[in-house]
């Protein structure tokens, strides 16, 4: 994981690598995926970005207003798929 002492989180959900060839710059960072909206968030210590933590999902959230209330993303996926199935049934008559 990216710079284990300073930049990483304990249990990252992903890893990002930014390369800038002309200057040979390589930036690495950990990411986590919001358990409520599935957004990939970059971990930048000291950035001042407000994140949240869900004690039911036991993980950090993106901090967005819609993610303050715990609705796991899996439940949202199921709702989308159920709506789709209902539409298909109604189309068939």
């Amino acid at each position: 994981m990216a710079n284990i002492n300073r930049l990483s989180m304990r249990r990252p959900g992903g890893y990002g690598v930014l390369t800038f060839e002309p200057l040979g710059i390589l930036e690495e960072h950990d990411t986590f995926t919001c358990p409520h909206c599935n957004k990939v968030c970059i971990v930048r210590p000291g950035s001042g970005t407000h994140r949240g933590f869900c004690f039911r999902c036991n993980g950090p959230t993106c901090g967005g207003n819609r993610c303050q209330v715990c609705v796991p993303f899996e439940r949202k996926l199921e709702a989308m798929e159920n709506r789709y199935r209902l539409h298909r049934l109604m189309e068939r008559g």
Partner: protein
Amino acid sequence: MAGARYSASGNQTLTTTFTTALTVGSNATTAQRNFITSFLFGNEGTPADLVSVWTAQRVTALGTATLVTATKRDPADRVAQAACGENHSVEPTYTAAEEVHESPINHRGTYRWMAMPGDEIVTPATVGAGIGFKALHASAVTDFRAEAVWVE
């Protein structure tokens, strides 16, 4: 995660409005969940020292695009079920406020993201639902490219 792994890449020309380089989503007949495990953004040709914001966002319709044949990571797997498109002439229908990732990237740089198992970007099993990768710039007209790896 069990499942077959595929990859696809697509390109598009930068304009002053968002244009889409690649979409990965469920095809028109058989819907399945796609788990995006990795993606890569970059520019082609001779890019200048400029910065674009890259966005990966959910779509509910894949728009009109040049068909991209997904590459099987394991030759023994079946052909990918997901529909992939590049160089869109009609933009996909993006879901408002459903950006799953945004990165400002210098045109001379590349960005790759990889998910840990269980933290992939998941798309619902509904026809046309997927992820689109798009970018814009106020003046540059170079080509940009996105690549995605997913499990289905």
